[in-house]
């Protein structure tokens, strides 16, 4: 009978119309800016620099190795190394970035800079509403604007931050143990490329293109169940 399909369609639309007053499923609008969608933990928007402690300048983890600058696909990171050194979290004197600019009008939020950073210094922020009316410098974030504390990092990405903190603490403990062992006349074990600690960066700290360690791949890998930590990085499962 002509019109049959049309009537079915009309019934469907009417069901949605009346349903939108009754069930949340049929009215999915979130009225921004009064309401916000709850933040999904893994969201990434633009990078920021992590600093430990209270002072952003002395606590910054970045050592200006310029790896992120090289690997950034649209080349939006601009780093100038400092000429002096300051001690890092382990105590070794390291360079620090005198200038660290990210042009967020160019940045495409690909997160490659986070992946390649050996020092867990740069992470992804979750703020997307960063409007400005200064079109000449407003979207060029300098290192002061980029520096955010480790507590803030814990707030926005709890699982990731906890994993990073555990890894860094383990590395510091290992470095302290190595220093203690070096005090005795024994050949010091190399501190950095320890496969047992699931530290993401040390395996990639060596810039040589050859595969990192002539270490045997550990057969008993930590079983990564669906509740795996978020900070799994390539090359980590050693």
């Amino acid at each position, binding site marked *: *009978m002509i019109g049959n399909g*049309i009537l079915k*369609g*009309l019934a469907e639309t009417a069901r*949605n*119309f009346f349903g939108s007053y009754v069930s949340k499923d049929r*009215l*999915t*609008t979130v*009225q921004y800016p009064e309401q916000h969608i709850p933040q999904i933990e893994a969201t990434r928007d633009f990078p920021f620099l992590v600093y430990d402690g209270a002072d952003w300048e002395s606590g910054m983890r970045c050592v200006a190795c310029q790896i992120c600058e090289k690997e950034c696909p649209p080349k939006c990171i601009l780093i100038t190394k400092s000429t002096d050194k300051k001690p890092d979290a382990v105590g070794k004197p390291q360079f620090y970035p005198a200038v660290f600019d990210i042009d967020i009008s160019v940045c495409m939020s690909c997160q490659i800079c986070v992946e390649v950073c050996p020092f867990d210094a740069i992470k992804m922020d979750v703020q997307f509403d960063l409007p400005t009316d200064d079109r000449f410098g407003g979207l060029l974030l300098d290192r002061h604007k980029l520096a955010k504390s480790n507590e803030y990092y814990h707030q926005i990405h709890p699982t990731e931050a906890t994993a990073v903190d555990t890894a860094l603490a383990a590395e510091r403990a290992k470095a302290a143990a190595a220093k203690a062992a070096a005090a005795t006349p024994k050949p010091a074990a190399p501190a950095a490329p320890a496969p047992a600690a699931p530290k993401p960066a040390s395996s990639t700290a060596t810039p040589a293109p050859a595969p990192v360690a002539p270490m045997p791949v550990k057969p008993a890998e930590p079983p990564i169940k669906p509740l795996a930590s978020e900070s799994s990085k390539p090359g980590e499962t050693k």
Partner: protein
Amino acid sequence: MIAAALTTQDVDQIFVLIKHALLACVPAALQPIASAVLSIIPILVAFPLLFAITTVLERKGLGRMQNRYGPNRVGPAGFFQPIADGIKSLTKEDVVPLSADHAVHFLAPILLVIAAFLGYAVLPIGRNMVLVNLNAGVLFFFAVGSVVELSVFMAGWSSRSKYSLLGAMRAIAQMISYEVPLVLASVVVIMQAGSLSLVTIVESQSGYTGIFPHWYLFTPWGIAGFILFMIAATAESNRSPFDLPEGESEIIAGYFIEYSGFKFALFFLAEYLGMFATSSLAITLFLGGWAAPLSFLTFIPSYVWFFLKLLVLICFFIWIRGTLPRLRMDQLMGFAWKFILPMALLNIFVAGLWRFLPAGPLNSIRWLVCIGVLAAPCIVLSFSLKQKKKLLVRTYHFAE
């Protein structure tokens, strides 16, 4: 005290009483002109206000059908949105193409609005509330309605743009083809009422048997006539699913593509006013005009019933718009000439049958015969149209 003295009759006739009171203040020589002006002003106020409310209702209704809110920021629940839209269209730059025919380009929307408003002159909005009681009211309405087609073509032609030309050609073809079934669907009512005057038509539907009204809708030829009239009215006002002339996704606004600012708003105003006018005519012809649907509801004033019925029809238009995709040009024309027109002619024959058949218990003989005569060709026609194009729901097979 005044409230106690007001009867339902007075509330029903309140606008008439106000008009008479105001007329009494005017010197006798100016009274005819004053009477005309006083009758026109409510129409000029009420229907554009209804237009404003309809735009918001449409957007909110479509939104709810699409699982979202409509406009809900401007004013309480978004009902001041038309004010914002009006300000926007008034303050936009009026861009006219350099090679356009300026005089015709300027006149087209004005003529369209005038034609749309003229149709309201013969519609009875309440008891004793008609602007002019012409004894050829229906004829006047249709005559004025065809001026709309002329102005649509003026708009499309004068813009000197290929898209608008395409849109204008389509619009003319569509409107002319659907004008015929529109008129034929109203002929049945004229036959039954025996008069072309809309006031007479409404009054002949205003009786009650028991609590049920005498509307022409409650007859088989009335139902068929109403459905055919509404389909033709949708096509006449270029509403979905017949909105190919302003096909938004193909020729992007068709004949008014080169209009901006206030003239664009005038086109929208005229389109909606035309929709209201044809719906009001449908209400007058088939739904009893200002008559209440049940006899114990007559205490509600007549104009309230008129506008309630108009709102129901508007909601129906919005519902159809939210559901159906657009018909293509040749399918649209085929539908008009091959289905709607034969059914309208058949309807006239059935109306005659109704008048001359014996009534039988509860009119059952008349009902059965008329429904049979209407339904059989309808089913046959629809099957034959489908078969010719072999439109079927297909089944698919899978590899391996």
